[in-house]
């Protein structure tokens, strides 16, 4: 009998599964950092973890609290600058995967991390792009991790900080982005959504255990098409142990089940 786990935990484990061994992965802060660290320690020991602060292929120590944390620089093969990482690796086209979070994600997988309300008279101001726009613009595959709440999934973002498919299947191409048709996955505590390249819109690909497509739809502010879904594999005991004991031992990012 498998151990109890929280959907937050499974979300992180499932997100990590979208990283393959040997991938070069450009990693944002927060949950992306946790899920990438999990991948590195679990099934992708040869991945090249790249931090926007410039570290290349660090071995990473448990639970960094910032991209400037010495834990994300541990035994890197090179320390460098923002320009090296975001320009010389990412914009240069060498990131297989980029991994970010976001406050709002819309049906085209555009991400808003700038503002709720009007840009010129904001209701709530968020931190802004940081490296997120760069990550979403230049990687071959984009992973977005966020908790599934209706307000986080509006039909249109109040402000597009980081491009998804913008407004349809050829939106990125028209905008002139160098990576015009990337795979994009949105991994939440309820489901995995992916861009359908024929529409440029998100659809549900997989559901967390005991979560129905209906429940996902109820918690999503834009329309999701019906279609086949797969169940997300629960975490193994070994995965849970790794997550709890090495990746986030203090539970700084993830709650374990009560």
């Amino acid at each position, binding site marked *: 009998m498998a151990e109890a786990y929280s959907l937050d935990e499974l979300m992180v484990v499932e997100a990590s599964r979208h990283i393959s061994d040997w991938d070069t992965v450009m990693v944002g802060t927060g949950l992306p950092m946790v899920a990438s660290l999990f991948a590195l320690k679990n099934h992708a020991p040869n991945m090249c973890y790249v931090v926007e*602060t410039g570290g290349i292929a660090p071995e990473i120590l448990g639970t960094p609290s*910032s991209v400037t944390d010495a834990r994300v620089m541990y035994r890197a093969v090179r320390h*460098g600058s*923002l*320009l090296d990482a975001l320009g010389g690796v990412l914009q240069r086209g060498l990131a297989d995967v980029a991994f970010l979070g976001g406050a709002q994600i819309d049906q085209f997988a555009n991400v808003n991390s700038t503002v709720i309300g009007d840009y010129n*008279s*904001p209701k709530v101001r968020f931190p*802004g792009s940081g490296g997120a726009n760069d990550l979403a613009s230049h990687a071959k595959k984009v992973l977005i991790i966020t908790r599934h709440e209706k307000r986080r999934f509006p039909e249109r973002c109040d402000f*597009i900080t980081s*491009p998804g498919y913008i407004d349809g299947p050829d939106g990125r191409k028209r905008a002139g982005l160098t990576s015009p048709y990337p795979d994009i996955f949105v991994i939440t505590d309820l489901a995995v959504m992916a861009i359908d390249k024929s529409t440029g819109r998100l659809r549900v690909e997989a559901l967390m255990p005991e979560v129905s497509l209906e429940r996902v739809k109820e918690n999503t502010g834009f329309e999701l098409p019906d279609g086949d879904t797969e169940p997300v594999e629960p975490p193994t005991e070994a995965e849970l142990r790794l997550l709890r004991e090495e990746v986030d031992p203090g539970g700084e990012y993830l709650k374990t089940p009560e």
Partner: protein
Amino acid sequence: MTRKASNKVMTAQEAVKRFVHDGATVGMGGQSIGRCAMAVTHEIVRQGIKDLTLVGCNLSMSMDILVGAGLAKRTECGTGNLERFGTTFRWRKAIEDRTLEVEDYSHLAMASRFLAGSLGLPFMPSKSMLGTDILNKQIANGSDAFRVIDNPWDLDEPVVLLPACKPDVSIIHAQKADQMGNIIIEGFTTQEPEMVKASSSVIVSCEELISSDEVRRHPDRTTVPYIFVDAVVVQPWGSFPTSTYGHYEHDPEHLRRYQACARPGGEAYEEYLREFIYECENFDEHLDRAISSARREELRASMQKLL
């Protein structure tokens, strides 16, 4: 202006008096909870230098203090936050209240603007921000900072041009410097190499003053040579409560204490500024109030374990 190989060691007080002026564009070193130029920032607050435009990639606690103290009129940056320790609350409030001008960029876009400045170029191309509101809404707002042109070698390819960013003065905190102003930054370097080289004046505070002889023994390790630097302030713990790689970790306690005052603002925040900045003659006095020597040893030991 060309900077010479003279002795540039001075106090933060003198450095700020000489090189930071009302209305200046200030390049902010560090990022998030790492290596922010806190000592120099405090001195700017004490001297009340105002109408500042703060520029950088991730602006963090040092920026939030200058905004909170009412000294900033504008920011140009990629983010304002302290990651796990929350957003930059005084900055957020000032934007929501529309008392602060902001120009938004991606981190790479800001780094590219500094790169242009560091190479004496008027602008730098970028492939970021295409198709987004960072570009579109700011252009619609009449911002003069973004141009989209066709790549002359592929007319189907739009390219963003961004104007060089050349701060009047940059303030950074480094691990090492010598008295001429050769700087060694260890670990992550953020946008600082390009930003510093793009600046008209540069103030560097450092954990450790080393000899120029030591610099000349390892010229491969110098991050920025002295010809870009105007003032060297020797200030151990100069980035507290943010970390300095190789020396000490960030201090979650003091970061939370600041955030607990910055979030509500008002009296709580005024009290923070009074207790920790205005009433302190210099940064050493701030450190005496803010952190015990036992705690300092802990943060040093904690960093040593991560190297």
